[in-house]
């Protein structure tokens, strides 16, 4: 058996509405140094879904290679409503995204309605309202939200197809700030629904992603953690492995934490004195 072989243990896919994703890592396309780096990192991450933003066409970019050329056709595109501070702007952006991607591919939307420029924390009330309206229109909504269990439950009521609590502010690299809230979110959302919980924002390094998955989170979404790394390609690989490792550890069922030692070697058969 070669050292690179790895037994494949079974896992269920990540289900978001009608979609089935093999990878539990979702990556963003922002802040890469160039399109080649974007393309390589998307591929190396093993992700099946990728986020994009909707912005005005720049005349300098007309005719050149663009993001459209580097996203593999089999990847699901998740347009976001980043930069929106109101429900109306969010809905307008979602409609533009649907027009861009067509009625079939264009139903997915990452609902982001920001409440504060410095923290980029979501405006919770507006996010819930935007989700409610878009879900009624038939969008598959994946809202970005605070790590507040009540808000996550309200999003379920609003018809969200995923809830995406932040680990920490976007791009902060702080990792999971409030694991207790995240654990409560997992418990309370699962008590009511099969909607996946996906940690989105604030992941800094591989152990953050692994930790989220070990807690039982359904998936992790990240952008800056990879794109901002010194070697983005290497970090994409690290994150792919971290999400898998954390997921396997969760499914394997860890040992309990104990205050005192339990010997690993047998007590019987000790050499007599």
């Amino acid at each position, binding site marked *: 058996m070669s050292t690179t072989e790895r037994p494949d243990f079974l896992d269920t896919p990540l289900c978001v509405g009608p979609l089935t994703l093999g990878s539990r890592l979702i990556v*963003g*396309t*922002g*802040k*890469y140094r160039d399109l080649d780096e*974007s393309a390589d990192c998307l591929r190396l991450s093993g992700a099946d879904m990728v*986020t*994009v*933003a*909707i*912005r*005005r*066409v*720049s*005349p300098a970019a*007309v*005719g050149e290679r*663009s*993001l*459209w050329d580097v996203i593999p056709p089999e990847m699901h*595109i998740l*347009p*976001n409503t*980043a930069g929106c501070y109101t429900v109306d702007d969010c809905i307008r952006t979602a*409609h*533009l*995204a649907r*027009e*861009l991607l067509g009625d079939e591919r264009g139903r997915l939307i990452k609902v982001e309605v920001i409440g504060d420029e410095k923290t980029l924390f979501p405006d919770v009330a507006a996010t819930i309202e935007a989700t409610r309206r878009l879900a009624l229109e038939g969008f598959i909504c994946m809202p970005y939200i605070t790590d507040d269990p009540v808000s996550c439950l309200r999003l379920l009521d609003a018809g969200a197809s995923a809830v995406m609590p932040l680990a920490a502010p*976007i*791009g902060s690299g702080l990792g999971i700030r409030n694991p207790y809230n995240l654990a409560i979110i997992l418990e309370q959302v699962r008590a009511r629904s099969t909607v996946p919980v996906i940690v989105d*924002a604030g992941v800094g390094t591989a152990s953050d992603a692994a930790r989220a998955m070990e807690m039982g989170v359904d998936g992790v*979404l*990240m*952008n*800056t953690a990879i794109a901002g790394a010194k070697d983005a390609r290497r970090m994409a690989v690290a994150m792919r492995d971290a999400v898998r490792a954390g997921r396997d550890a969760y499914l394997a069922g860890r040992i309990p934490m104990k205050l005192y030692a339990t010997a690993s070697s047998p007590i019987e058969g000790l050499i007599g004195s």
Partner: protein
Amino acid sequence: MRLPLVKGAFGEGGEGIVKMRINGEEVLFNPPPGSLADLLSALAVPQARIAVERNGRIIPRAERESCPVAEGDAIEIVTLVGGG
């Protein structure tokens, strides 16, 4: 965003200049584009990878040929870009 004065793209001129707001900037067209599709051609924007709003209303791809444009219109042309 700076777009040039677009001249003579549609055959004989003489109908006069029209001014429209494209992605927040004033652009002069001479002669005036007959339709939204003409306008997009004049701007050399790849039509498959964009979505367009005219005066706050999304104009679906299929309606671009038949959609008129007029003096004072506000046009937004958007596409997908990198984001998290």
